[in-house]
């Protein structure tokens, strides 16, 4: 029995050795299995230091280089390697652990942030043996030929695009791809490119146009790739058509700018042209003078061979040649219609005097008529305020008989001239203001004007018959039988010539003894005709006056 126990005991002591048990706390992963064995402990472990301070990176020398240069994922990982990559956990233990899905790894931690299309890639599309460029990785991997080092490593790439992407520009440009491309859309060359760094700086509309507008593809390249260098940019012609067909020099920039091709005003210095623009000409659009060639499509302005010696080369002569070609004698270049130069009308056939010298030209000179005004009669310019009343006068109604250029009013028609009229003024008529007789009237045509001409002027034309037509039957209302021009009240009536001549005491009787006042609808008047002139009509039989 004792022998049995001793055998079991010795077997239990020795069996683990036969089974390969060692001092190791556990089997190493398959990537480190060549380090199994008690003699290999110190290849990783440093005696007296459990931190494996140099044990890992001494072997993983490419990683050590990156850690020391503070680059890559491990740059800021101030940790013991074993904290993340523990070993002795069994042959199948994966020492690189992805807490989440490997595709959720925050790649920015490596110092290279993935963006755009890169986010859609699988890891091994970039981290592949074929794309490793670091020689130190390949040299290192040769030490472990039976390990899948290059298929598993994330080292060995660099950030330059051409590691993964082929250089379709064939070194025509630098390898700084990101100066033009971004990761969102490789084929769409974008804004990121600072064209200021190029030999030709983009300004104005050039900034907005697609790159391909200028950078045409190389004709002999497959695939088609735009030409990025060697472009002729000293002149605009290689990109832009010379629509002027060499009419002007190829110094396009002397007229055009990149802000707006069609807007040459800001750019072109017209003082360099044969005809300098000044005054209002500065505000005129180019097309006003530089008319487009009608035969060209799109229309292009004529820039040379312009005639500018005469204003009428551009301006229409609205005076129809009446003033000749010396426009500047009246007009200024500052304002065509205004600020006309002082015109000496005395040089004309119709010198302007007094009131005429102060009126605006267009009062007489109608632009629309396009001809000089006729000045033979005043009525060519002036309206006949008298509505043709004097037209039948011997002088044809010459205005100058009554009016002068000193002023329409006052009239130069005076008493002398009035006395040559049908009703000479004398007596009290001399003191009567014109307006008392010459009052506004409305003609048959409905025009109101002051009346100067009467067909048959009579006293009652102006005066009211206060006698209620008592004298019409006998004197046909001829006032001058009784009244003279001196005064209405100073009668020239001779009673002796009446039906009842006065004599005797009748001469001394006051008029109103026989001519009594009466009243009618219009008021009071004196009765002259008829008056009963029998004796008994006034006297009683006793001789008393009734």
């Amino acid at each position, binding site marked *: *029995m*004792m022998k049995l*126990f*001793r055998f079991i*005991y010795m077997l*239990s*002591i020795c069996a*683990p050795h036969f089974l390969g*048990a*060692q*001092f*190791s*706390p*556990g*089997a190493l992963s398959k990537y480190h299995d060549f380090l199994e064995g008690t003699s290999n*402990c110190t290849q990783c*472990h*440093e*005696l*007296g*230091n*459990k*931190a494996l301070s140099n044990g890992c990176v001494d072997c993983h020398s490419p990683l050590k280089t990156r850690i020391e240069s503070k680059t890559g994922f491990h740059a800021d990982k101030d940790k013991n390697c074993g*904290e993340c990559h*523990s070993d002795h*956990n*069994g042959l*199948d*233990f*994966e020492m690189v*652990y992805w*807490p989440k899905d490997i595709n959720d790894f925050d790649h920015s931690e490596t110092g290279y942030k993935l963006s755009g299309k890169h986010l859609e890639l699988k890891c091994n599309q970039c981290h592949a043996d074929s794309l490793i460029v670091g020689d130190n990785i390949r040299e290192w991997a040769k030490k472990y030929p039976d390990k899948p080092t290059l298929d598993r490593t994330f080292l060995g790439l660099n950030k330059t695009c051409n590691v993964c992407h082929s250089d379709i520009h064939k070194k025509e440009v630098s390898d700084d791809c990101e100066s033009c491309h971004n990761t969102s859309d490789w084929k769409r060359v974008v804004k990121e490119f600072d064209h200021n760094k190029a030999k030709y700086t983009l300004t104005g509309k050039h900034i907005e146009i697609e790159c391909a507008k200028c950078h045409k593809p190389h004709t002999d390249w497959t695939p088609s790739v735009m030409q990025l260098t060697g472009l002729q940019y000293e002149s605009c012609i290689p990109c832009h058509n010379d629509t002027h067909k060499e009419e002007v020099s190829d110094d396009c920039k002397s007229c055009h700018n990149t802000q707006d091709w069609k807007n040459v005003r800001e750019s072109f210095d017209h003082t360099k042209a044969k005809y300098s623009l000044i005054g209002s000409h500065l505000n005129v659009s180019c097309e006003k003078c530089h008319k487009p060639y009608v035969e060209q499509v799109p229309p292009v302005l004529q820039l040379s061979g312009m005639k500018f010696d005469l204003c009428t080369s551009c301006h229409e002569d609205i005076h129809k040649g009446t003033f000749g070609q010396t426009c500047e004698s009246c007009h200024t270049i500052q304002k065509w219609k205004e600020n006309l130069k002082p015109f000496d009308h005395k040089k004309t056939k119709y010198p302007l005097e007094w009131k005429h010298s102060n009126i605006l030209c267009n009062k007489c000179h109608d632009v629309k008529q396009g001809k000089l005004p006729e000045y033979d009669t005043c009525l060519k310019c002036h309206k006949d305020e008298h509505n043709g009343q004097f037209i039948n006068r011997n002088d044809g109604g010459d205005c100058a008989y009554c009016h002068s250029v000193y002023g329409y009013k006052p009239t130069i028609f005076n008493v002398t001239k009035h006395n040559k009229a049908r009703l000479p003024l004398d007596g009290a008529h001399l003191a009567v203001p014109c307006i008392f007789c010459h009052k506004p009237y409305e003609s048959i045509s409905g025009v109101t004007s002051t009346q100067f001409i009467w067909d048959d002027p009579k006293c009652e034309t102006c005066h009211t018959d206060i006698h209620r037509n008592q004298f019409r039957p006998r004197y046909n209302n001829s006032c001058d039988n009784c009244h003279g021009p001196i005064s209405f009240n100073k009668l020239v009536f001779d009673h002796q010539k009446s039906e009842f001549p006065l004599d005797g005491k009748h001469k001394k009787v006051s008029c109103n003894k026989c001519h009594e006042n009466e009243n009618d609808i219009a008021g009071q008047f004196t009765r002259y005709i008829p008056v009963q002139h029998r004796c008994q009509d006034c006297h009683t039989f006793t001789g008393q006056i009734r």
Partner: protein
Amino acid sequence: MKLLHSIILVCAAIALVVAVWWIVLGTDGYYGLSLLDRPHHDVHKEFKPGGIVGHGLGIVGSAMILLLLTYSLRKRIKVVRRIGKLSTWLNYHIFLGVAGPILVTFHTAFKFGGLVSIAYWSMVAVALSGFIGRYIYVKIPRRISGTELTMDEIEKHQNDLTRQMIDEFSLTAEQFKYLETISAVDKIKTRGLFGIFTFFFYDTVGRFTLRAKLSKLGKEMNIDRSKVHTFYKLTLMRIRSARQIAFWNSAQKLFHYWHVIHRPFAYTMIVIMVIHTTLAITFGYTWIW
């Protein structure tokens, strides 16, 4: 004094249960994971064998195991032989022999491999053999001081019981024969070293039927109700004494062999533990220092 040690042991046992409870609940299923998955668990850093907690458990557990060796010193070195009762020392020895391996087991994180696994399994063997030894130990009649009774002293004790039973209950020869039968002393005696398993069977499983059999005997003998308890007590003591006499020779032999298992595994465990500890310290695993 005995009460004080009891209190200390109970408190220590409670502390052990609480510690195990905290470890099991606080690790969120860590120990249930496969070895490949454990390194990714949140508590791995602390509870792995080299972690601050795991390493601490190993150190404390190992310290307990080293401390329980003082029991051997107590038994073997004359100078300290008079310090405390041997049974008290054994109680501490047993507690430390239970607690130490439990803590060491958590230190291993249930990962058994390499040379140190020999130490672990040796520890397990020592602990399990300790349970068996303890069982055998208590089945060997002893004085209060813990020293074993001689066979003569045991037989004298049994004769005293026999006489007392005859005096009080007038047991007949047949009834004594019946007691011999239900105590299964013949089976224990005739089966040599394997008699321990027979003894163990009747001492554990047979205990439930033994009471019924004695109750039946009591009723047949019309034992007065006031003396039933004394009857049961005397008969049980008589059966236990008879079994001990029958088991005594086997127990002596077993205890001899037990030492062959218990001690060498203990030595093996200690030697490898020292190697393991030395290697750990050599590689810088100095815990908090």
